[in-house]
């Protein structure tokens, strides 16, 4: 039976919730590992039972950056697709099939890490070698996510066949763009894991081409961050306007921004490899230029969001240069949490431009500044928006209501998060500028003066990290309440409509062949020659090193 208010069947609810349970369990365990790291690095805690710092660091990265994000996003996107274009029983079966493969892969990788056989961090750079089941589990997560991709593609395809000549619903269009981005990007990591890491870790081949494996990893690693960000943008563009009582500023600009993200988030991986030997600096610079292109859709988004806010505020009768800000529902956590997330994106995006700035990267590369940067992007902008989505999505799926009490608690959660993250990320940024490295356990580096300077910032990180962990406990409590304890009722699934003043959406925006074609052409342009170079001028390969991580 389809619920009249949410537009989802109980089977849809079950499918999406299955993803959410994995996401929130990962949030709790991954967050706990983060707290432990900051305590170890402050010099105040030694881990018991022979647990290693790099083991909890690996768990933190894998659970939060890979598992939490992927499960939340795929679950959320199924909710959006099922709501806007519907899901057949057959498609639901394939969605569940993908889910179980991802879960099986996650479990396989998690067990390998817990046994201490994979302290290679979530970037698993060769030639450090984890036990083969670490890579096999990750490959299964990717393969499971591809099944979700093709299920989403099929959902829109079936809808389009029934609605000839109509433009696809905005959110379905956005989901398909994000899944296209994910599919094209994961081809790189699948190639390195299936063709390089698995045979090498099983001993079927003796050596690995390190630079090639890193290049394939970063071909995937940067679009990965846009795969996290775009679902947040979906909520900003097409859901938040409804929550604040407004309309979508422009359907066509929203679609254009997503197309630009698809084109310019992939051929840019070298900006993660700027300080590496063996890559011609000309190609690094070309990819830096391509990287900067994503600033355009980011600016488009910023404009659209604030235009929506202003138009809505003025419609409610608030005037003055900034008076319309009062017209926004600051006491509604469904708006407040993502709004704070958006504000975090201003320093986060600025930091990102610095990181990608070719030779300027040398100042901050692999310092804890970088860690501070992505705790602002994925750890604040994205996650606060995901929390903002959860406040209505979870009760809508479980047939309960977001109570006033939980709404207030959510606002407190957002404030706690903001305070904790400002302290933690702020001190990471400063310590990074002073040279403190990322991904390193507590060390006095032989007692140098510089290293002693870093330690006070590491204590500040532990303070921020502890506050953030309180935020995680609050969020898990809110989640449990919305799943099992909140009063029964119907929570609205907010879908915004396009403003009557917006221009009609031109059909060329849905010319998939054109956009995919340009995306592939850009990738081939940015990568063909350097990759051929990397293969042709490869030094002798590297044997596996697995004793260094024990």
């Amino acid at each position, binding site marked *: 039976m389809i619920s009249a208010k949410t537009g989802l069947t109980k089977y849809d609810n079950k499918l999406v919730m299955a993803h959410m349970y994995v996401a929130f369990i990962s949030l709790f365990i991954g967050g706990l590992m983060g707290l432990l790291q900051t305590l170890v690095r402050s010099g105040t805690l030694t881990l018991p039972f022979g647990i290693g710092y790099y083991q909890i660091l690996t768990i933190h990265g894998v659970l939060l950056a890979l598992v939490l994000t992927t499960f939340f996003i795929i679950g959320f996107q199924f909710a959006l697709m099922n709501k806007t274009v519907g899901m057949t029983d057959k498609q639901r079966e394939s969605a569940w099939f993908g889910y179980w493969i991802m879960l099986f892969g996650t479990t396989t990788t998690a067990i390998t890490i817990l046994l201490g056989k994979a302290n290679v961090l979530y970037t698993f750079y060769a030639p450090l070698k984890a036990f083969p089941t670490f890579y096999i589990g990750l490959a299964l997560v990717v393969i499971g996510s591809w099944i979700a991709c093709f299920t989403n593609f099929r959902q829109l395809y079936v809808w389009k066949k029934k609605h000839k000549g109509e433009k696809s619903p905005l959110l379905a269009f956005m989901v398909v763009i994000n899944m296209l981005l994910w599919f094209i990007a994961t081809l790189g990591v699948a190639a390195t894991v299936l063709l390089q890491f698995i045979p090498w870790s099983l001993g079927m081949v003796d050596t690995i081409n390190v630079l090639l494996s890193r290049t394939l990893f970063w071909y995937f690693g940067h679009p990965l961050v846009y795969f996290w960000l775009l679902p947040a943008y979906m909520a900003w563009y097409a859901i938040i306007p409804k929550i604040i009582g407004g309309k979508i500023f422009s359907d066509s600009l929203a679609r254009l921004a997503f197309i630009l993200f698809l084109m310019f988030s992939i051929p840019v991986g070298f900006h993660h490899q700027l300080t590496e030997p063996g890559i011609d600096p000309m190609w690094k610079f070309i990819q830096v230029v391509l990287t900067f292109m994503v600033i355009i859709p980011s600016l488009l988004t910023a404009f659209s969001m604030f235009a929506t806010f202003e138009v809505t505020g003025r419609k409610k009768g608030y005037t003055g240069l900034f008076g319309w800000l009062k017209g926004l529902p600051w006491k509604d956590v469904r708006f407040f949490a993502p709004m704070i997330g958006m504000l975090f994106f201003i320093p986060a995006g600025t930091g990102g431009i610095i990181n990608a700035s070719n030779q300027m990267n*040398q100042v901050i590369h692999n310092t804890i500044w970088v860690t501070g940067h992505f705790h602002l992007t994925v750890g604040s902008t994205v996650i606060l928006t995901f929390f903002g989505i959860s406040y209505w999505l979870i009760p809508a799926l479980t047939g309960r209501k977001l109570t006033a009490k939980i709404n207030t608690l959510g606002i407190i959660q957002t404030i706690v998060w903001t305070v904790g993250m400002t302290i933690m990320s702020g001190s990471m940024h400063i310590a990074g500028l002073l040279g403190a490295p990322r991904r390193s356990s507590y060390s006095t580096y032989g007692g140098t003066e510089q290293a002693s300077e870093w330690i006070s910032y590491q204590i500040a990180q532990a303070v921020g990290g502890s506050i953030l962990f309180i935020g995680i406990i609050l969020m898990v409590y809110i989640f449990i309440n919305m799943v099992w304890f909140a009063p029964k009722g119907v929570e609205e699934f907010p879908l915004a409509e396009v403003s009557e003043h917006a*221009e009609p959406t031109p059909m060329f925006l849905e010319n998939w062949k054109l956009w995919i074609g340009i995306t592939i052409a850009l990738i081939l342009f940015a990568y063909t020659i350097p990759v051929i170079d990397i293969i042709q001028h490869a030094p002798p390969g590297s044997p596996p090193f697995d004793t260094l991580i024990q």
Partner: protein
Amino acid sequence: MHLHKYEKIWLIFGVASLILFLTVLGIGAFYKGMQPPSHLATIDPQNVEAHEAFRDENLGLRQVGEDKYIVSVIASAFNYDFGLDEEGSAVKNIRIPEGSTVLFQVTTTDVVHGFHLAGTNVNMMVEPGHISSLETVLKTAGTYTLVCNEYCGTGHHYMAATVEVYKP
């Protein structure tokens, strides 16, 4: 497709600053020659001593001109090898006069390492099979910590040395 007038202004401003940023980076890279470290030479990681720069006698600090020095280092988990001093013990601190031009060349015999002279722009990845190299002028006196900033195993945070830049 229609763009709002303010949006046009906003985008023109955005794209113009983007072009400005890229021009600055481009001038720095191609006119002033400040490229990120991208040395293309390769080496056999199992046999780095075969390369002239990494023979025992060439490791550590070498003066090659009046204000010119070369520092050759072999990185391996969890150590930077600067060669031996006169007493036969491993060098952990090198001293360079302020204002010298120094060429750092580094390679690794095992996994990927980092090479960051904290507080300076001497920051590069060190990868098996490749030689990383970077030339710089050390302009400010002080003691700098050399840290491995790429995870290389359980002892990664112990991998360090110091570089002392002194007033001559």
